Every structure is written in structure tokens, then in C-alpha cells.
């Protein structure tokens, strides 16, 4: 009937080779990725990504009962796009003791808690011993939860402080209970932008190396891209390709999480931030380019829960989680709630026409 009109009609000629490559199982190259990121034919791109998502995940979309813990906001890096960091002498700077952190996590109303997501600034006083104690204290408070902790940036920081290799640092953290690593701190893999926006932070090579070491130690990790500030479509595309190459070699990435830049209260607050068009094109492009990544997340805290719901039709298969105490995006003016209930997450997924599936840190289905 009516659907005859829409028969795989692709308006943007740049997407035709993309569609052909996808149907023949060929990988997308840099040019294809840029075409996807620039297309005005949003729905044709979305349909290609949606088809791919369905082939991998069927009718399911996942979420996790988790808690976000930011153990310190004191950070020596001072990145331009960040509204969260404070200096050592700042009156609203803080560092939680492991006991205090464990206390907070134990008060989370989420039952059973499946994951604690732990990230913080590069605090000059944070030692490996602190990190180990932090993991142990939280594990004691919530033995049922997996610990997804410390970005590559923090691992690098602590290793340098201790004068040990990052590999050694990761081994010690794993012994202390580290189950997985989050994907933050990747920002955008571009030296041009690192020099301007985050000169004190580790570069792409180091970030990827630390993730490769984690993968070798059987620590699964995620990957992110902070977009919508000064980067070009080509830089977004190159970032995706670097992740794909690394995944070919080390196979430990679980999910890619596009992070829309939140300008408020940052030194880039004059920038408007990405629009929904950028977000949906990036989600879809990521699904198509990252053919070796199991999951693409729609991180509702930064996207907004409405756009995250729509993103489930543009290649995303996961909404992240209940979160409860998100601070980093909210300091930068994110207007979303700082937590959602399981019922709200399930309702968002159902309204999108998909089946909600609770998962654990390793993306294994859990729950009833």
C-alpha cells in the first residue's frame, strides 16, 4: 500500500555508494563517513543505520541500573570545554574519601545496582593506593555491582605519579576490583584541536594505547567522541576510523558513546553546541562505520531523553542508565534530570517501538 512511495529512495547521491557497500558487506572509508556526516538526507542515512542496528540487536534496546560517581572535581588539566573542573584551592573543589564515596553509593535507591561508573579529575594528590581503596570500599558497599572506573586519562595520571607503567597500573586496579573502563577522555582525536582545547590531556596515541593494554588484560572498555565544538566533519570521521582500527587490533571496545558538547559555564560558552541534526547523523554514521563495535549508546544525559529516544531509530541500541547523580554534564548546563527510574527508561524504549532489555556492564542481559 502506501509504503510503495518510499522504496529505498535515496535523495543524496553521496549515500548511494554507502548503501551499496553496506549491502555488499564492504567497509566504509573516510570519504563515505564524511558524506554520511554531511548529508542533508537524514532519513536515508537513518534507515541504513537502523537496518544495521536491527541486524545486530533485533527489536531490543538496552539500559543498565547504574550510579555515576565523580570522586573529585579537582583537575590539573583545565580543558576548555569542561565546566566541572576546579583548582586545588577552589572553595567548591572536593575529593571524596573512599569511605565517603562508598557511603554515597550505598545510599543509591537503585536495587539491585548493576554498575558503578567512577570517574574524576586528575587530582594531584590521588595515588594508586587511593584508587585501589576507592574500588575496594565501593565493592564492599555494593558487592552486586560491577565497577566501571577510571578513564585512560586518569590511568595515565596515576601511573605517572607512581612512576609505574600504565600496564602495571591497570593490573593493580584489576586486582582491586576494576571490571571495565569508561570511554571518556578521548575528546576528539585531533592534534590541531588538542593544542587549542585540551593541551594538558593525553593525546590520541596514548589514549588508544592504554585502551589496548586494558583489552589485553581482559578489561573491556568504551570509547567516546566529544563533538559539536570546533571539530570538522573530517575530524569526526577520522576519530571513528581510529577507533575502528584499534578495535580490529584489540577487540575490547564494547560501546561507542557520542558526547554532544555542552557549552554552558565553559570557556567555549560562546559556541552554540551541536544541533539534533549533528547528533542523529553522528549516531547513524557511527553505527555504519564502527562495524566492529557491538553497541552505540544514546547517552540521554547529554542528548536529552527525547533526542536519545529518537536516536534509537538512527542506530543507537542503548540508553545508558539510571545514573542518579550525574555532575559533569550538569555543571555545563545540561537541562536533563540527573537520574531516571527504570520505569522511565523502559517507557522511553517502549514508546520508541522497541523492547527494553536490562543489561550488565558486559552487555549481558539480566533481570526478569
Amino acid at each position, binding site marked *: 500500500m502506501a509504503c*510503495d512511495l518510499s522504496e529505498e*529512495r535515496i535523495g543524496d547521491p553521496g549515500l548511494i555508494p554507502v548503501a551499496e557497500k553496506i549491502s555488499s558487506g564492504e567497509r566504509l572509508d573516510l570519504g563515505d563517513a564524511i558524506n554520511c556526516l554531511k548529508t542533508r538526507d537524514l532519513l536515508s542515512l537513518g534507515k541504513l543505520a537502523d537496518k544495521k542496528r536491527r541486524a545486530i540487536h533485533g527489536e531490543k534496546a538496552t539500559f543498565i541500573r547504574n550510579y555515576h560517581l565523580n570522586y573529585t572535581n579537582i583537575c590539573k588539566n583545565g580543558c576548555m570545554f569542561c565546566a566541572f573542573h576546579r583548582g586545588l584551592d577552589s572553595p567548591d573543589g572536593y575529593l571524596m574519601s573512599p569511605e565517603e564515596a562508598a557511603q554515597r553509593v550505598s545510599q543509591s535507591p537503585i536495587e539491585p545496582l548493576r554498575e558503578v561508573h567512577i570517574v574524576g579529575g586528575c587530582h594531584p594528590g590521588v595515588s594508586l593506593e587511593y584508587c585501589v581503596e576507592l574500588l575496594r570500599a565501593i565493592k564492599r558497599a555494593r558487592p552486586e555491582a560491577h565497577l566501571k572506573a577510571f578513564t585512560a586519562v586518569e590511568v595515565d595520571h596515576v601511573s605517572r605519579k607512581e612512576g609505574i607503567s600504565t600496564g602495571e597500573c591497570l593490573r593493580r586496579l584489576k586486582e582491586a576490583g576494576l571490571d571495565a573502563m569508561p570511554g571518556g577522555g578521548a575528546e576528539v582525536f585531533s592534534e590541531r584541536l588538542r593544542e587549542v582545547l585540551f593541551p594538558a590531556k593525553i593525546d590520541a596515541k596514548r589514549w588508544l594505547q592504554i585502551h589496548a593494554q586494558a583489552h589485553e588484560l581482559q578489561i573491556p572498555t568504551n570509547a567516546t567522541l566529544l563533538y559539536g565544538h570546533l571539530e570538522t566533519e573530517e575530524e569526526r570521521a577520522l576519530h571513528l576510523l581510529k577507533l575502528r582500527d584499534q578495535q580490529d587490533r584489540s577487540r575490547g571496545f564494547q560501546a561507542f558513546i557520542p558526547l554532544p558538547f555542552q557549552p554552558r559555564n565553559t570557556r567555549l560558552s560562546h559556541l552554540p553546541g551541536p*544541533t539534533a541534526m549533528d547528533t542523529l547523523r553522528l549516531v547513524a554514521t557511527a553505527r555504519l562505520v564502527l562495524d566492529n563495535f557491538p553497541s552505540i549508546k544514546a547517552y540521554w544525559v547529554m542528548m536529552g531523553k527525547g533526542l536519545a529516544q529518537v536516536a534509537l531509530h538512527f542506530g543507537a541500541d542503548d540508553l545508558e542508565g539510571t545514573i542518579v547523580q550525574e555532575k559533569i554534564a550538569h555543571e555545563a548546563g545540561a537541562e536533563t534530570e540527573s537520574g531516571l527510574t527504570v520505569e522511565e527508561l523502559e517507557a522511553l524504549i517502549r514508546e*520508541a517501538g522497541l523492547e527494553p532489555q536490562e543489561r550488565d556492564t558486559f552487555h549481558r542481559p539480566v533481570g526478569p
Partner: protein
Amino acid sequence: MGKISFQGSRLGKEAALRLYGEADLLELGSLANEVRHLLNPSPNVTYTVDRNINYTNVCVSRCGFCAFWRPPEHPEAYVLDLETLESKCEETLSLGGTQVLYQGGLNPFLGLSWHLERLRLMRSMGLWVHGFSPPEIIFMAKTWGMGVREVLEKLVDAGLGSIPGGGAEILSDRVRRAVSPLKCSSREWLQVMREAHLLGLKTTATMMFGHIETEEERVDHILAIRSLQDETGGFTAFIPWPYQPGKRTLRARKVGPVTYLRTLALSRILLDNVPHIQASWVTQGPQIGQVALHFGADDMGSTMIEENVVASAGVRFKVSETEIRELIVKAGFRPLKRDVLYRPLE
């Protein structure tokens, strides 16, 4: 305007319901896009700059979904005096606005001459008045013992330029009896629009969905607009928007963007005779407002200098003209400022 056909015929109710219930979101979006580009082949997305003026919040209709109305004796009840109206109009002109969206509650204390004086004032200041939704017109006719046509003629004579499509809610008397029993019936709403179109007035039409209505009632609503449009051709645009449940209003699960986009797309597909579909960034926010441009909408509505009704339900999105233009450009379209009648202003 040529009719869009699906294998030679328009979508009827059954097919529409099936499409709405079963088609994938992006499939609906693509169909809506096809229709949008057939009706409006240009890359233009229009928007307008106007001011909402609500002349009173006193309303005897007491609709369950509305957080704006107050009873006459309430301390927050107001009626705009002439001076305030004049200063609001002056401000609108100084901000580059040329038109006002002029609506209010069903206030039994306001007479014909009160209304006419204000219309004359606004006309004398050079403003186009897009005013009085059908429930207000019906209420005036009943209160004053006049016919709908007579009321319309008097208002037009004093300066009314066009009529907004509000108060349609869901054109189903079952729904209206439950959520807005004191408001005009579906038949009366359509009657005002018919009379207005016959007098040469252009109007819009709205649909407020996501409360107690069924999918079938939404489809019936859209088809009722389509039938009247076949008869008169007087609708310029259709504006579907989801009910925004507030603390004091009718309880309902708030409709999410996926349902919004599906409904928007369905409207574009079914209303093959209505020139424009408006995105509701006021209820959806700028992000989903932008996405809506790929689901059949070709108009961003108004960058409202003042908006009270949705704001009173606790929803507050503010977007400047520059931001609206940015959103349109970044979605891959060309922004074009328009007047109430959708004529380009640049």
C-alpha cells in the same frame, strides 16, 4: 493544488490507521517527506515573528488540560486594559513584529464594543491581528445572541485579519465531553472555520493530542480537517502538538518525541490539501523541533515574543530568531521569514 495519491487514491481512514499503527518511524518520515516536497518543492522552511497577547485569563470553559485559566474572582484573574495592550503592541513593533496572535479565555464580562475597540487600536497601529480561536467566536455568538457569521463580520470590520486554529483539541465529542465539556463542540469548531473561510479569512488548524484520545480519534480529527479543506481551501497550516501535563491539570503520560514525530508525519501524509505543517518547538524544544523538519514540517511557527499558555503548564523553551534560522540552516533547509498568510517577508 494536485492531490497526493497512493496508488491512485487518497489514504482513507482504515489505511491511515494501519499506517499509523504499523509503519516504522523512518518509513512514516520518508512518506511525509515525499508529500512535503511535492507540496513545497523549495528548500524553504518558514517562520514568523509575532507576539502572543492573551487579553484575559478569565475563562468559564475550565478545561481539564489547561493551566492558564482563572475564575473571575481569582486574585490572579486579569483583563488587559487598553494602555497595556497599546504598550505591548508598541513593543512588538519596535522588535520588528508586524502581527499579533490575539487570544483569550471565555470571559462573559467582555462585550462586543470592548473587543471592537481593541481591534481598531491594533489595526490603527498597523498590526495584523491573527485572533480569536473558534471557541471564543462561538462563546461570543452565544453570549451576545448573534450568529457566527455576524460576529465574524463585525470583528473583521474592526480589524481581525485571520483566525488561529486553537481550541480544536481533539475533534471528537466523546473526548470533548470528558476534557472540555463547556467548550464548543466539534461541529461548532468546524462551523466557525467554514464561515470564516467563506468570508475569505485564512485560518490554521491545530490538534492537541496525547491525553485521553485514541489513535482512531486522532485520525478522525485529521480527516475532518481534510474534508473541510476540500470544501473551502481556507486552512494555511496544520499544527499538531502534544498535551503538556502540568501539576494541576489532567493527568496523562507525556507523549514522547517518537509519538510526536509519527503523528506529525501522519498529518503531513493525510493532509494532502493543506499547504503547510508546523513544527511545535514550543512543546518539543529546539532539538526535536529541528528533527521535525525531516518528518514533514516545513514551518517553524513563531519566535514568540511572549507566550503564556504553554508556559503556565511549566514548559518554557525560548528560541530567538537567529537561533531559529540556525536550526533551519543546520537541518539542511533555507530559512524564510513569513507573515500570517505565509507570504515571504524577505
